[in-house]
């Protein structure tokens, strides 16, 4: 039975809830935009000004907040008007931001959502409003795509592994390549390790050349030289999976291991050390985090490290925005600044774990040079 006075309390509760919902709607509609126009807008020469909206992935994360900061810095240098909207790592917030941006109709929107599931809705919102859009890292249908090239990382890493293997006198009769996949993350990690083996098999003496397309997420073994395990994207997952797999590989067999991120690289390294296999092992990874770069500089096992220049992504996408505004048709994918480091060139590009020099502009992104933006920002490399 309802207690006396409960109805009025419930009514009050409903009213409070309604007000709270209304407030949330207003906040969502505001899209958590910082609402501040870009720094230094007034300095842009006539005809070169650009009104850019940036939907950042998640400013609560230190790594992503760095991208937002770079975007502000570069936009300021170029004299572009910039409005930042934080997607807060969720699809719902990304969608709320997209609606706000579509209403504001900037010249170009650069959007990085961490929720691929809302990509279609985001693309539809921008296309309906006629706002040219650039999707960073996560594809958005109808938007120009900017991302790293995993196949390039793979090819370069595999080539480095093969060169190191050859210099030690290894060949197809005594060497196994282990690709450590992260199947749950989709095709990107597989793209790296599969292209890695394609390049490795082409260069390793006596090996039968293999195409990357022959390797799928379900592959566990291919010919005599390829094994695939799943490290689940984590240090401990890779450690446990590789440690178990090593039990089935003769101890005198040489190993070339490719991991798609540095956490997995560290897990693999620990498994090799723990099994006493490091002395006849080589490792290539991707990430260019502090730990990966340190291993590359100091550990003879770690011979290759794919470098990700996240801080430069803002400059590249602003150059894309310029090209879009100038009416240029962009390629299907514009490749982010990237290269693969070895012990010889790591100190050319990184001081400690901080990038000190931009890598050469990737082939698929050469059109950005014509905008003059990369040169202005010192990102053209050599």
């Amino acid at each position, binding site marked *: 039975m309802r207690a006396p006075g409960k109805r009025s309390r419930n009514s009050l509760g409903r009213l409070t809830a309604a007000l709270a919902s209304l407030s949330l709607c207003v906040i969502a509609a505001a899209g958590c935009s910082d609402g501040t126009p870009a720094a230094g807008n007034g300095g842009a020469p006539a005809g070169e000004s650009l009104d850019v909206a940036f939907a950042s992935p998640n400013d609560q994360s230190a790594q992503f907040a760095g991208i937002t900061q770079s975007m502000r810095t570069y936009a300021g240098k170029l004299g572009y008007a910039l409005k930042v909207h934080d997607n807060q790592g969720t699809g719902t917030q990304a969608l709320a931001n997209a609606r706000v941006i579509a209403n504001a109709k900037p010249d170009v929107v650069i959007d990085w959502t961490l929720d691929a599931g809302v990509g279609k809705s985001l693309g539809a919102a921008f296309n309906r409003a006629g706002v040219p859009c650039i999707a960073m890292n996560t594809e958005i249908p109808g938007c120009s795509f900017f991302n790293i090239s995993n196949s390039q990382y793979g090819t370069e890493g595999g080539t480095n592994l093969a060169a190191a293997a050859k210099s030690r006198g290894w060949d197809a009769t005594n060497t196994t390549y282990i690709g450590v996949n992260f199947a749950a993350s989709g095709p990107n990690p597989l793209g790296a390790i599969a292209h890695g083996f394609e390049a490795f098999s082409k260069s390793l003496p006596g090996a039968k050349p293999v195409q990357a397309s022959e390797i799928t997420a379900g592959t566990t073994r291919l010919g005599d030289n390829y*094994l695939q*395990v799943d490290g689940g994207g984590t240090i401990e997952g890779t450690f446990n*999976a590789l440690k178990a797999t090593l*039990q*089935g590989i003769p101890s005198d067999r040489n190993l070339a291991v490719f991991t798609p991120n540095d956490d997995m690289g560290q*897990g693999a390294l620990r498994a090799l050390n723990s099994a006493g296999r490091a002395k006849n092992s080589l490792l290539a990874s991707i990430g260019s985090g502090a*730990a990966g770069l340190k291993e590359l500089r100091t550990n003879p096992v770690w011979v290759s490290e794919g470098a990700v220049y996240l801080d430069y992504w803002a400059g590249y996408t602003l150059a894309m925005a310029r090209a879009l505004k100038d009416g240029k048709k962009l390629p299907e994918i514009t490749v982010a600044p990237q290269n693969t480091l070895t012990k010889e060139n790591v100190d050319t590009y990184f001081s400690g774990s901080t990038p000190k020099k931009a890598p050469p502009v990737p082939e698929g992104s050469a059109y950005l040079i014509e905008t003059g933006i990369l040169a202005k920002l010192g990102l053209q490399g050599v």
Partner: protein
Amino acid sequence: MSTERQVASTMHTPPHGAESPRVPAESRTLRTGTASRPATGPFGRLTGAINDDTLATLTLLLAIAGVGAYLTAAADDFLSMSNIITILQTIAVIGIASIGQSFAIFSGGFDLSVGGILPLTGVLFAVIANQGSGPGGLLTALIAALAVGGGVGLANGLIITKGRINPLITTLGTLSVCGGAAFLFNNGITTPIEDVAASVLAAPALGRLTWDVVIYLMIVVIASLVLGVTVLGRRIYALGGSREAARRAGIDVDRLTISVYVLSGVFAALAGVVAASQLQAGSPSSYSTIPLQTITAVILGGASLYGGYGAIHGTFLGVLLIGVIANGLNLLQINTFYQQIITGLVLLIAVGLTRARATLMRAAHSDGKE
């Protein structure tokens, strides 16, 4: 017999077949209603000599033996000494956290916060170990990690008992807090441990047996003794059997609940330190699925989700079964997607066998009554 002991022995199924010498078997009313009753008739004669807990253990041993026999035939290296040690090392982290989870589940609760404590203390251990030097630095890091684990457990216990908030919700909250704190510590980056001495727990201790495995096995034995033969153990089962009855029997149920969560937190922290020592790094994203894995191991070991029943050796066997399956699937190079399906199916079959065992025991009991 004290009132407390009477209630403890009548409100829940005692551990390990409840062959406590201090409690006459005929005075017990068992939750599954079978273990110590006289059994006659065909089924009764068949099962009369074996109590419920022994049968649960045998079922699990049978499952492990079955999987092991198949893997021995299918993978050359499965039974090699180095692979057996690899399996034990792999299960040590989950196993230690499962001991704490066992205490929580036997007492009628849950501890999801292990999924936050483990990475948090792993990162903490790595960061502090890097700041200090030598054994002193590692010891400081170890003590700090255990203190944080115990502190989170204490917070869990206080919120559950004083705030009257469900353990599931409470520990879900602290899981999130600790998980976030683990990422905050070093901006979400995995922290390698500079001092190679930090991997001491993964170094050989007795022959080829490593310290992490030795510590885990010692904890299994000590926890079994604590739950099996001490007053604290009986009180934990009593608490899980009926909180109200335990309270009426004079047990300080709030204090006991807090102690259980502190223990669980400390075990999770120790698991975090062992993981960091094995990996020689602290990763904030490591072992994110450990709450589910530990609960699965405890339930697989024959515990009741409602508390009051279960055994540490059952949990050990549950963890071992999970570890053997994971190791075998890797050795056989099974496609990763099939690995998930096979793991799930084997676990379902194992739980199914456990349930069939319970049905068999009930049938035996009915048979005995006729």
